[in-house]
């Protein structure tokens, strides 16, 4: 007869706030084979675990049910506790009465309490049939894939590569650099963004342990921690990168002009283009939808333009000197094996078109990211401040914070960096053009961070007007082309109205396009706002729900550059700690054939997705045999076996039926 101990956790108030612990404990005492029921404020704490260990050591219990949070995070902790007390680690079952009970049914206390009882009954029923099992070990692929070549991805890749690990850095754009390379200066030190980032970009590209895979996306993922098999789609570039020298000839002679997304469409690039002058690698690509060659081939089947390849001989203009143009280039799929993955795919900023009240149709209303490009020496105006509508120098600029952030219509969260970069913009402008009039509209100014408050005070002293109040109500275009900004000043307790030449909107940070899809490929989960979610905000800030998949940077939520780098280096260290030992522990949850029962039908053989089952001679007959090293533990064979000869350890048919009975019966 098993001796089952039930341990009910309060999780502080998290469980006890909705579930009546005493009632649940009294109920648990009535369950078959339950010999003792105990409770504790935090079962996972040292004293909490000691309660369990003590009872095991004293021989009071030999099966354990912990009614607490989710086994996904805490099962390994309690299994270790069992093992350290001398009991097989698989004599444990958890009843998830927090994540799937108290939290979900917080306002239905009696419902939550009744459900907790049934969940405990189900766990007790399952643990009754538990069997002792042994963990297995497998080989770990000693390489890491970093997805996203922004500042976070680059630092993670460099750290891992410096530890001697092979790193694949996958970037969607033709060049690495991410969002940071688009910035002019960075707060609070006012470093030139490109000056501090470009040397790092070169370091990444030249590192012998980093394989840069640009203009590529993750297409499919198989496997799991230790042995991910990832298919990466390298998009067709139509230019042979082995030959391309980055000379830029094609980008000058290509006749097709298209809006330049790098500068947020404020200027033009050609269909053959290098993303930006400091691109790493400095290689050109052809943008197929806009290329005249492909357009004409699709329409008429005849090439209308091959200027990049052949030049214009009558005018003495030469085509690509490296003979690198490759119109027949195709998407290429490559398969990579890695032990761990770090996702650093960053963010995008909200488009101004959402905000009709701020006259988004006006060219002089720009987002802060667009303004950043206007200020940048590599931007559309080469760093000269010009009004986009008429090219004149603006005398008055209004900046509006929290556009789309802290706004229940769009995003409830704070985008975190806007207050500081608005002050940064103000400082850049004031230092360059002391006469310029700047009005900064804030809901309130949030400058928590090292040296941030000092930055704010200094900027104000430059003569920048800070207007605190609610949201700016409207921006209208006046007949003279100027912009009328209307808001409220809480310090004056009065409405304010002013005329500006330009308006800068600090639009919200959003997850990059495709974040959720990418997360899904790796079974990493997203939160309410679409950012990838860490397992635990405080304890596991870089881990995702999927083991071996880590995250860093704005893909997890808005953050500034120092935070992104700190997080990326933390993720690199977590990934390295996993990969470097070279071994990975697998749970003992695998299938096994009872060859006495096997009827030799062979149904299971083709069902196994890992080819782990074969028919082998046993007592003169062909019987199924499952190779434990190949079994991944899905249980498909066990559910198909007509002779019920396959036992799926950890989730046996007997155990699951016992759970079903426990839950279904009144």
């Amino acid at each position, binding site marked *: 007869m098993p001796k089952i101990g039930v341990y009910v956790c309060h999780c502080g108030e998290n469980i006890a706030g909705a579930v009546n612990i005493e009632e649940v404990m009294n109920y648990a005492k009535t369950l078959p084979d339950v010999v003792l029921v105990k409770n504790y404020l935090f079962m996972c704490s040292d004293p909490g675990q000691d309660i369990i260990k003590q009872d095991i050591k004293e021989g009071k219990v030999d099966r354990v049910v912990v009614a607490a949070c*989710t*086994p*996904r995070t805490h099962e390994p902790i309690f299994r270790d506790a069992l093992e350290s007390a001398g009991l097989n680690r698989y004599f444990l079952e958890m009843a*998830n009465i*927090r*994540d*799937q*009970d108290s*939290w*979900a*049914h*917080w*306002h*239905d206390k009696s*419902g*939550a309490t*009744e*459900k907790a009882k049934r*969940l405990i009954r*189900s766990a007790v029923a399952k643990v009754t049939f538990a069997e002792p099992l042994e963990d297995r070990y497998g080989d770990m692929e000693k390489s890491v894939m970093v997805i996203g070549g922004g500042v976070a991805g680059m630092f993670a890749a460099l750290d891992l590569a410096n530890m001697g690990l092979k790193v694949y850095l996958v970037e969607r754009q033709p060049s690495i650099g991410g969002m940071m390379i688009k910035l002019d200066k960075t707060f609070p030190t006012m470093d030139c963004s490109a000056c501090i980032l470009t040397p790092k970009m070169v370091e990444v590209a030249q590192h012998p342990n980093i394989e840069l895979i640009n203009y590529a996306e993750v297409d*499919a993922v*198989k496997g*799991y921690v230790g042995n991910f098999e990832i298919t990466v789609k390298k998009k067709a570039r139509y230019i042979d990168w082995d030959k391309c020298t980055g000379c830029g000839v094609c980008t000058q002679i290509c006749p097709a002009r298209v809006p330049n997304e790098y500068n947020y469409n404020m200027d033009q690039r050609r269909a053959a283009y290098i993303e930006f002058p400091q691109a790493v690698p400095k290689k050109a690509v052809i943008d197929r939808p806009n290329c005249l060659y492909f357009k004409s081939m699709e329409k008429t089947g005849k090439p209308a333009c091959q200027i990049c390849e052949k030049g214009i001989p009558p005018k003495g203009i030469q085509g690509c000197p490296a003979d690198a143009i490759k119109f027949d280039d195709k998407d290429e799929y490559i398969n990579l094996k890695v032990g761990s993955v770090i996702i650093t795919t960053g963010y995008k900023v909200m488009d101004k078109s959402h905000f009709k009240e701020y006259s988004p149709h006006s060219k002089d209303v720009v987002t802060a990211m667009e303004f950043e490009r206007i200020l940048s020496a590599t931007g559309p105006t080469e760093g000269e401040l010009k009004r986009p509508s008429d090219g004149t120098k603006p005398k008055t600029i209004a900046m509006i914070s929290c556009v789309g952030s802290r706004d229940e219509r769009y995003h409830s969260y704070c985008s975190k960096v806007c207050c500081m970069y608005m002050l940064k913009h103000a400082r850049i402008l004031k230092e360059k053009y002391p006469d310029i009039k700047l009005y900064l509209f804030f809901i309130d100014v949030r400058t928590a961070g090292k040296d941030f408050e000092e930055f704010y005070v200094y900027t104000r002293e430059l003569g920048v007007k800070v207007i605190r109040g609610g949201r700016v109500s409207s921006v209208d275009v006046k007949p003279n082309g100027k912009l009328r900004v209307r808001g409220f000043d809480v310090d004056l307790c009065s409405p304010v109205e002013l005329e500006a030449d330009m308006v800068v909107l600090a639009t919200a940070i959003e997850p990059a396009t495709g974040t*959720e899809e990418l*997360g*899904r*490929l790796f*079974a*990493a*989960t*997203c*939160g*309410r706002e679409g950012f990838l*979610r860490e397992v635990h905000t405080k304890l596991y800030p870089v881990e995702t*729900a*999927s083991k071996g998949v880590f995250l860093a940077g704005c893909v997890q939520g808005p953050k500034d550059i120092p935070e992104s780098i700190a997080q990326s280096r933390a993720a690199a260290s977590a990934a390295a700690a996993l990969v470097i030992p070279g071994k990975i522990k697998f749970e003992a*949850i695998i299938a096994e054939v009872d060859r006495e029962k096997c009827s030799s039908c062979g149904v299971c053989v083709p*069902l196994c*997705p*890992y080819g782990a089952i074969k028919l082998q001679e046993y007592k003169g007959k062909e019987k199924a045999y499952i190779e434990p090293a190949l079994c991944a*533990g*899905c*249980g*498909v064979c*066990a*559910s*198909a076996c007509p002779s019920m000869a396959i036992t*799926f350890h*950890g*989730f046996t*048919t007997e155990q*699951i*039926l016992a*759970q*079903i*009975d426990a*839950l*279904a*019966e*009144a």
Partner: protein
Amino acid sequence: MAWEPRLIVIACQWCTYQGADLAGSLRYSYPPTVHIIRVPCSGRVEPEFIAEALKKGADGVFIGGCHFGDCHYKEGNYKAIRRFKLFKRLATDLGVEPERIQLEWISGSEGKRFAEAMTEFDAKIRELGPNPLKGGANV
């Protein structure tokens, strides 16, 4: 006491089980009539599990797996849906409405969808009323 449905969800640990955890941590609520049994993969679900649950009086059985292409074990969810479709045809023969059993793909990131699916399933079962097999029947 008024009748409250008893719903059993057999959930894949890689997706729907995570989705349920996520629903909880984001505080999306759904009826406490829902009880989850964790399995490694929806492909682990034996038709017998559904039969047993209905026989023992569960008012509804919901199987949650990964979206196609997302299965941690490559193709367990395809196997799950094949078995599920077969079983659904047998449900009428067992004397229960086929609507009492449902299969849906809910990923680990779809906490909100999990809560919605559970609320909808609960409402549907309440409309159907108690399981006709409740209180002893031969299956």
